[in-house]
């Protein structure tokens, strides 16, 4: 006689009494957020023009970071490599423009070739030429680095590529510090155009150079406008490139699944090189704009902005292009507001704290997609 086993009730799920205590952690974060809001709100009420001025300087910083962060996020999205050398490509970009402007006076070529051209056009075409030269040089450099250093290691463990990236970064920094290259000194940077500053008070007025703006006014310069325009423009171009073109489709395919992309007839190596090239072009542009905005350059210029831009990319969700943009703007604001209201040396500390908190709340960044489980 077969035994009739009574169907067993499914075991009760393990009790997790700690889950009820999630409010402690949330409360802690809420406390920090409240503190930050209180500090900001108090300062906003105390002196609104100063606050807006700080936000503008933060935006300027953030838009430059956005240009660098794009390269990090694209490269990471496609080869999962923290390309530490990217910041140094950025540095090379600013040095190329420095030599072009100071040594070869490249920005004045339209005036020499077309003597009848109005002054405004000369400046615009000249500055654009300098930027294009920097971008091209950076593209050549980045593609060389990719071919020489990273490509042979594509199937090696990831740490090998990472160590190589650190090595390339050190090489560029210290090779640049040699006297016959860029020299180890800080070099004052000559802008390819004049700075024009406006101030906002009952309308927009142009500030005469050498005078202080009236109290309670907000100033902004043409540098800020150029950086803003360049950053937004590259963002739009990149979105178009990635979403609408064939190579963009190939990039997305390669970042999704390289072996399958290869099977579908995509030349993955070429796509990777192209990704490095696009990132380097934006880094070169960023280098020129950074040097124009903060006109003092040296061979280790790229380290900290590069790092911040990478943090911005992580903050926004690495691999996501809008994420890099948003993350960079947040980083710029965090840095500027910390410098303005807490203390200048603590800006990196606060920036990294914000990063860690954001990652704890959203482990893949603001725009990041949740990681796929290993198959």
């Amino acid at each position, binding site marked *: 006689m077969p035994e009739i086993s009574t169907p067993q009730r499914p075991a009760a799920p393990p009790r997790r009494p*700690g889950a009820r205590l999630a409010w402690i*952690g949330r409360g802690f974060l809420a406390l920090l957020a409240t503190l930050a809001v209180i500090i900001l709100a108090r300062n906003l009420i105390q002196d609104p023009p100063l606050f807006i001025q700080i936000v503008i300087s933060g935006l300027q910083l953030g838009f430059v970071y956005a240009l660098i962060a794009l390269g990090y996020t694209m490269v990471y999205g496609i080869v999962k490599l923290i390309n530490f050398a990217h910041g140094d490509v950025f540095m090379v970009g600013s040095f190329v423009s420095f030599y072009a402007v100071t040594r070869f006076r490249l920005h004045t070529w339209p005036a020499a070739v077309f003597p009848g051209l109005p002054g405004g056009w000369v400046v615009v075409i000249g500055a654009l030429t300098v930027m294009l030269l920097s971008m091209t040089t950076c593209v050549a450099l980045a593609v060389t680095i990719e071919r020489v*250093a990273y490509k042979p290691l594509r199937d090696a463990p990831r*740490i090998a590529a990472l*160590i*190589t990236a650190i090595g390339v970064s050190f090489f560029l920094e210290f090779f640049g510090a040699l006297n016959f290259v860029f020299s180890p000194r800080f070099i004052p940077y000559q802008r390819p155009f004049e700075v024009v500053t406006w101030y906002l008070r009952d309308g927009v007025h142009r500030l005469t150079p050498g005078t202080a703006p009236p109290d309670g006014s907000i100033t902004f310069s043409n540098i800020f406008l150029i950086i803003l325009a360049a950053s937004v423009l590259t963002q739009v171009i990149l979105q178009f490139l990635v979403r609408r073109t064939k190579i963009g489709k190939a990039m997305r395919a390669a970042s999704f699944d390289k072996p399958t992309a290869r099977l579908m007839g995509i030349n993955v190596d070429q796509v990777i090189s192209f990704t490095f090239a696009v990132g380097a072009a934006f880094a070169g542009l960023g280098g020129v704009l950074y040097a124009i905005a903060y006109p003092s350059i040296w061979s280790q210029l790229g380290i900290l902005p590069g790092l911040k831009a990478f943090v911005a990319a992580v903050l926004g969700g690495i691999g996501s292009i809008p994420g890099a943009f948003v993350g960079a703007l947040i980083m710029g604001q965090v840095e500027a507001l910390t410098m303005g209201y807490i203390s200048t040396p603590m800006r990196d500390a606060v920036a990294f704290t914000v990063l860690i908190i954001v990652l704890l709340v959203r482990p893949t960044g603001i725009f990041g997609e949740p990681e796929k489980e290993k198959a």
Partner: protein
Amino acid sequence: MEFDLGFLLFSVLKIAAVLAWIYGLLWVLGQGSRAVKAAGIVLAFAVIQLALSLPLGGAPLFNDFDQGLLFQACAMAMVVLGLNLIYGFNGQFSLGQWGFYGIGAYAAADVTYRWTGGDASGLLVLGIGVLLGGASILGVNLLLRRFAGMPVLSAFTLYLIGSIAAGAAAVALGAPLSHLVAPLFGTSDTPGVLSSGPALQVVYALAVLFAGIFAAEISFLFGLPVLTLGSDYFGIATLGFTIVVNTLMINSDTILPFPEMKGGRGMIGIPKLTTWFWAFLFLVLILIVMRNLIHSSTGRAIMSVREDETAAKVMGIDVAAYKLLAFVVGSFFAGIGGGVYAHFIGFLSPGTFDFLVGFNPLIIVVFGGLGSMSGSVAASFGWIFFLEGLLRVILGQMGTEAPTWRFVLYPIALLLLMLVRPQGLLGRTEWGFLRAPETARRTPSASEITPASAGR
């Protein structure tokens, strides 16, 4: 442009001798009999001690410069062993090791600096602080056992509150206590009991130990939430930690209340207490701890997390706890290394703990071989003696720009190594003592695996 070939050859010989010494030390420690081991340790200690002190044809074999390199290499080996535990054995890509090294260095230096100034508050506050901090962490841990499944952020908040309370209590207790013992230091004419040499040696040992524990406790607090992030995110967060620590060092006299650390100008006047005895002792102790940890079931659990987290979880391994354990122990080693470093160099500058320099331990670990303790030690010694010693001097003889050339040449070497041997020089091989013990290495033969034992 003077180029001294004899010096070059002599330096290369020295590097070879040091590496052979490491191999010999590990070999003799791996011998079965206790007596041989003890004799071996004494011999290994004595050989270097003699080379440091015995004048051989006028000058000792290892001059002051070499002695500095030797101590630096010992400190670096401790840091790198810790990083190997975190990254090589546990698979957590950490760039924070340099920050913990700096914390250990500054904490230990502050204790002995104050002590030699007749002020026991450094030792008392740090000692009471790490003990109370450890007690509070254990207490909160016991409390949290009753709340399974607690979100990590909540746990972190509780640990943080406990640690801050412990720190405040330590400061409150340490100051009056130090006033109490102040008379024991005596005056400059009649030194008291506490200013004597032996007391200073004890304080040094305690300072280094407490600095290590301090670094470990900070790594616990930091690692608890941050280790839940994915590998690269963890790496970038720990890089941020190093940068934050460095920022605090630069502002130690303005943001932090430590005027004696002198912020960015650097802390001077740290008593040079590290002798070969201490450096050797700490290194050997760390080697023994590390070896026993790795070849225990705990060590196998740590390594299983590296191999496959999901599989480890399925085997019932508490992945989060083992990640934290490896991180804390690794940081403890870094803190000890920092204490040793601070007391031979006598001068701490925030530039030493810059995050760019912080890539060095990572590079050394990869150089020696991820997951090879012998590789870590050998690579640390080889690295310091070659890069800081030989290359600096040789290039120094060749021109003014030489220091920069050093950093132009070594990335190229790094690139070549990565191309030729990406698993590092030693791969995962171990030397002598650091090899798995016989009992663990023996795999059961087929006849021994019975269905009953296999099913167990």
